[in-house]
């Protein structure tokens, strides 16, 4: 009951997190202490090497109380779940709040592309979306954060001083109006406070 009231109060409906070099460790720090009843879906897109088996899902599962799974095609987006974007696929959010996969061209040398996830999510969740961009060695994600910002969503970038690779956060800070530039620990607190 109380939880429902709180979601309504802030109104956020989904979180998208993007990162590249060092991104996985950073994501784990953010989701590590989130409560099991954390009510929002969290979509995580981290660049990975293609055609390489990855145990990303099990690594995150070990470090969070939230149900974690890899996105499958046309799957419904549910609250309290961490969705990992699979290697070698783009993922888009559909208006009916399902995921679509896509194996089209790389964007900024990347598939998955953070921009594609962020942009498509912004078109669906509009100002009810929180976008978080973390450490990374290229400029993917800036365009996506811009879309989130233009829709009135909340934009957060990891403090470049803390990031293993500053390129990604710096690129976003240069190009987009960012609501919060925070350390990972602070990002987690902020997510808790949206409850």
């Amino acid at each position: 009951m109380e939880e429902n009231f709180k979601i309504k109060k802030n109104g956020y409906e989904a979180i998208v997190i993007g990162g590249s070099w060092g991104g996985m460790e950073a994501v784990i720090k953010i989701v590590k202490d989130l409560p099991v009843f954390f009510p929002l879906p969290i979509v995580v897109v981290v660049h990975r090497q293609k055609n390489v088996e990855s145990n990303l899902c099990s690594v995150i599962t070990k470090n969070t109380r939230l149900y974690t799974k890899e996105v499958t095609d046309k799957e419904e987006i549910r609250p309290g779940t961490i969705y990992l974007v699979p290697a070698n696929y783009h993922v888009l959010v559909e208006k009916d709040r399902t995921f679509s996969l896509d194996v089209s061209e790389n964007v900024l040398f990347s598939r998955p592309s953070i921009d594609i996830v962020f942009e498509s999510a912004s078109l669906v969740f509009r100002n009810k979306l929180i976008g978080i961009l973390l450490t990374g060695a290229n400029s993917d994600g800036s365009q996506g954060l811009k879309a989130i910002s233009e829709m009135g969503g909340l934009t957060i970038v990891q403090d470049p001083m803390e990031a293993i690779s500053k390129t990604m956060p710096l690129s976003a800070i240069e190009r987009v109006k960012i609501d919060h530039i925070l350390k990972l620990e602070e990002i987690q607190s902020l997510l808790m406070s949206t409850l």
Partner: protein
Amino acid sequence: MSALLELDDDEYLDLLLFIKGMYGFDFTLYSIASFQRRIRRYMANMKMSAVEELKRYLEIDQFHFNNFLLEITVNVTEMFRDPGFFKELRAKVIPQLDTYPHVRVWDAGCSTGEEVYSLAILFKEEGILKKTRIYATDINQKVINEAAEGIYPLSVMKDYSKNYINAGGHTSLSDYYFARYNNAIMNEQLKANVIYSTHNLVSDASFNEFNLIVCRNVLIYFQRDLQEKVIGMFLDSLPVFGYLVLGNKESLSTSRYRKNFEVIDSKEKIYRRIS
């Protein structure tokens, strides 16, 4: 991307109906987010700022539409993509196919042919290519022409060679093509048993019965209802014990036809019709 981030719902539907009426291609049941992104990307590349402009362009003639069609459908592919799949195909499916006097394969959504050549190479190495016919289809005539030619830039062959090795290849991928200038030209013997044709999964019926249907990463572009319709058509095109392969993030697990199939390999999404 472009300044135009969003297409208005009515405008979008209007465009799709326009295309359907003029050229017979029905995209209304394609996954919307993904397909709209392709359209926006095309418009941005063509420096078009309004859907009306795009319509006027498409109206000109078939040639302009074909150009559009080529760009909005996804034709990105590679040889031996997901090497693990080819490994499992070799181990679990080919021995069964080998028990038949003739083998018919349908590669649905073959794009520029990389998967067709991968299958042909694998079948050749397993000694069953000669008794096999591969029917390779795609919605685009242009990519089919490219597939039939079988000429690829040498620069990508290095990656493909890695895939080939990981797929359990018996020799070296370079045994199956010859290099000329900067191109790799696929061996004629791989082409002999392949029949190319255009086929639209949305509107065309099945055209044969197959022992194996390969349709990887095509259904992801379709909405659920259309996916089901196509899976139903595949079912009708398979005898009992015929195989169906989907992309490895696609699944029959939520399909109404799931009970018609058994799972041969859950990771590589290899299914076999049982009823």
